[in-house]
């Protein structure tokens, strides 16, 4: 079926991953982005997967978006979904503080452990912006976390669809800006390190001893 004739053309294929505690609204965000609706979904069992074609920066992109379950019970199985992802969306619920603190305590560690892509772009998303009166995490805190962790940041609402398109668009633009990710996204391209300059000492390797 992968060679089916009516498959639209695209310039790049990017794999995006959504993670975060159960109930923060990952599936809702994805639904809001792909079909512009909001409805109550059952908690994800394992993983959900959606494809969306978008035009960004004059490029035709195919986005394969993996929506994982936040439920702890499925976590050992989700590790493999991290592999090869060019973008990771870390979602928390602005009305639930624990979902925010878990990002640094649980999810960031999972990324370090399982992500195979050193350059992969990370994006912090605070969801349920519509419930402003119940807010438990300030925007400033979100910004600080994003700066410390070196990722993009946005607050949005799957329900009112505020910032939902922007969230995905910013992430994709950043991926398009990163040559190594771009190379992965376009099939058949290889990089040969011997033909480029010799590998430079990166910060992580030079800091030892």
């Amino acid at each position, binding site marked *: *079926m*992968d060679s*089916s004739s*009516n*498959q*639209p053309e695209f310039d790049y294929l990017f794999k995006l991953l959504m993670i975060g*505690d*159960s*109930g923060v609204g990952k599936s809702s965000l994805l*639904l809001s982005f*792909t*079909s512009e*609706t909001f*409805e*109550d*979904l*059952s*908690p994800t*069992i*394992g*993983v*959900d*997967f*959606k*494809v*969306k*074609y978008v035009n960004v920066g004059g490029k035709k992109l195919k986005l*394969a978006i*993996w929506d994982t*379950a936040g*439920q*702890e*019970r*499925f976590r*050992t*199985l989700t*590790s*493999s*979904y991290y*592999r090869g992802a060019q973008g990771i969306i870390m979602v928390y619920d602005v009305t639930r503080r624990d979902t925010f603190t878990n990002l640094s305590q649980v999810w960031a560690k999972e990324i370090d452990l*399982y992500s195979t892509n050193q350059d992969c772009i990370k994006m912090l998303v605070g969801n349920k912006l519509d419930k402003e009166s119940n807010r438990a995490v300030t925007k400033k805190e979100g910004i600080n976390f994003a700066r410390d962790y070196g990722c993009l940041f946005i607050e949005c609402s799957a329900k009112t669809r505020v910032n939902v398109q922007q969230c995905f668009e910013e992430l994709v633009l950043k991926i398009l800006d990163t040559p190594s990710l771009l190379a992965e996204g376009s099939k058949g391209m*290889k*990089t*040969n*390190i*011997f033909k480029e300059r*010799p*590998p430079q*000492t*990166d910060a*992580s*390797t*030079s800091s*030892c*001893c």
Partner: protein
Amino acid sequence: MLMQVEHFDDFTLASSWERFISEIEAVCRQWMADGPKNLLEKGAVRLEFSKNLYKVKSELKYASKSYCMEYYFEIPHNESKGSVWNFSLHEMQLCFGVKEFLVIAPQSASGVVLDAPEASKLLSAVAIALSNCSSLLPVVVPVHDPSRKAYIGIQNMGTVFTRRFEADHMGTQVPVQLMHLEGLYELFISKFAYSTLDLSVHLFKVHFTMKLTYRTLPYDEDDDVQGTDTEPTESEGNPGDDTHNKAQWDDDCPWSEWYSAEDPIKGFELIAIWSEKMVESSLQMAELENDSPREADKWIIFPQLSQNLSDASNGNQVGFASQMHLLIDALDMSFEAQFMEDFVSAVENPGPDNLKASRVIPPPSVVDRVLKELFREGMRDPNFAKGEHKNSRVVKGAPLESLFAQFCLHSLWFGNCNIRAIAALWIEFVREVRWCWEESQPLPKMPANGSIDLSTCLINQKLQMLAVCIERKRELNEDFEDCIGSMDQASPRVKEDDPVGEESDSSIMWTPGEDFDRKCDSPMTPENLHGSGMTVSRFNNEPEDVGLADLKASDCIRRGSAGVVGSMMLLKSNQRMHTPLTQDAPLMTEDMHEERLQAVEAFGNSFANISSEFTGLTEEASSVILLQNFSAQLERDILSSDMSAFKAANPDAVFEDFIRWHSPKDWEDDDAQENKSSEKLPIVDSDHGWPPQGQLSQRMSEHGNIWRNIWNDAPALPASEQKPLLDPNREGEKVLHYLETLRPHQLLEQMVCTAFRASADTLNQTSHGSLGQMAIKIGQIYVTMASVLKPLQVDRLSAGSEIIEDLRRLCVVLEHVEKLLTVAASLHRKFLQAPRLSEAIFSDYYNFNLPRMGTGSLGESTEMTFNKKQQVRIHERPVVSNMFTHPTANQSWRKVLSMGNLLNGHEPIFREIIFSIRDRVSGNHYAAYPSRVYQEEIETYRMYICGTSNDLRVALSVVSCD
């Protein structure tokens, strides 16, 4: 005298002679006019050994002979020290004490050698030319054949003074007195003292300075037979155990388990310098000769490196890199056959003899030994962190101490790593693995617990899976053996729980069959819980605290409980909630994950195609359901298994109870409001707060909620009676099928990755003190490996592809690191007591090699030799001195000592001395200042002497007033 020669020239010759002179003059004028800066721009070249000495040259013709005139000049450089023993001095500078100078010589290509008269003639030509352009440059001309290094030279020092230079060499039969300092001193004195004068009466203020070079005895002088020409791997799986009984320098280096490296440091040269002092008598010189080099003012050391280090042809160097080259060859060949067996049976086929010879399979005894080392030895739990670098995991191989990594390392040295030998060993290896499986013997060097490490290569993951399966199988068998006569072996039983609490009522609760189970069960510990695929859930259990509620035994029988959940009560029955024992999530190797991903993706894609045609919401919604139905099957199974177990442990529970336990966030407690209004609600049992108030979250209570659907379908079954999520028999058999049918190139690809990683991990264990650069280099090689090896995981490789070439380059990079590391290790152990020196020397060596490293280019050789020197500090001298071990009787017998200044019984291999006499002379050539007579101290006599114990070279410069 020279002028007279000129007078005899006939007219025609004279004119060509004059033309020659004016030609020289023109060149010199141009050089003088340009000055150093412009000359640099015009392409003057720097001398290799010097930081600041440059030369330009010009070709000249005279009487059908061509000459080459070179101008050597200095550009001020901040590192150039004024010392007379500066190591970057040109020979002429050292011999004659000049700074810049001209050399004129017949073109070396013409093969013309100057005899003394001819040399004088040439010299006078240049001298005339120089004085014509009033240049004060010294000029020298070689005399005789070049090996003699004889020179004459002249320098106009102004209107009155002329300095003349002369150097010659004595190759044999050096008179005994000239072997000693006293005799050399007298030789110098004789140049200016008239023989009639009594030397002992007349006091000359002679300046003296000396530089002696010592060389340690080669470290491996006695066993040089072994080093390079032994065939390291002919038929031996593991060289270095029986053939070498003599202790090797690297015996305690991590690589010595696999090979013995040649010591890259053959020895050291020590330079001892006596700085300038005044000598007034021969006697003083005789005393100086008794000085030990310990009294020298300065010690300088540099290593003598093995020839093989700089040799680009790596044929004779054995190490990980050399074997990796062979493994890459094997990989290149692995595409020839479908299965590994094909390589072994190929022996029957006639083929080129040379090919056959290089593809020998070692005899069975060697195979047996390797297998024994792999499977029988070290049954102890391997330490997987050993040798692991923090970057190790970026290389997709197996951990160093693991079974597959050890197999790969053995293969490197097995039958010289040819494809047939590898195939033979692999087949035996798999056979052995199958034996472990059939006999339920634990797989050695593999952990049988934990999760599968997806960052390792697939074979390692599979072996990890197998180890777990064997462990599970063993547990089942143990249970079986412990309980002979059990009627209940068919179901994959798990140890039933009930630690303390339910002792009293258990007889009522347990079915007869389970009653039996309990008797044969060992007391529950967290480990055997884990090992048996059961996990007590994350909730805090308090087994002792079984409330009254439980005593009201319900109609149904509670089974598979791991204790109660805090003080949580069920909603519809006044009982405590019990945590069920649940099955562990199944282990998956990466191909299993991949399969799952593909299933999801394929479905997602097919849906995307549909939805691109019909963009309706209904399809979108249905996709969710479809997805849940197909792709997340495994997670559904897990969920269903949890629900069944929960139902069994809590026979009276409802869906909401399950959610409260499994996904507390989807249960909205009314507690908050209730606290305020509790008094108004008398129905609530005040002790237990029963029934708990609250409701499911919106998303859980939606109509058609999948969770509820699964709940409705889940039977009440304790985990022990469920179909296992991981069937050890099936999964284990699948692993063996994978190993037995593995395509040769797939095996070789993983072997290459693993062998690279294991080599680096082994090398990483080398102790080299704290050489920062080495540490960085090792960190880098992992990253380089990872990026070169990456295509092996994604691309379909083919023989002779570009990737193979990259892999060969990677071997060269590894070789650089390996060599660097042997140097580091060797230095480290030689300078344990003077770490600063080992660091400094290593740093020099590292910087010297830096331009050639990391590029992986093949066949590159540089003419440059490493000669960077390091000054030895006073407190480090004993360490260096101890390297000069007293010669053995055997060694000293061979040599008659003829020079003095012994260091632990070693005489210098080279001695250099400079004598000089200085005088204040009035510089009356400064005509502008006739009243103030300018006084300048110049070296009127200077003699440079250098020699070994059987040759001598003397260079003299003398200033005279013409």
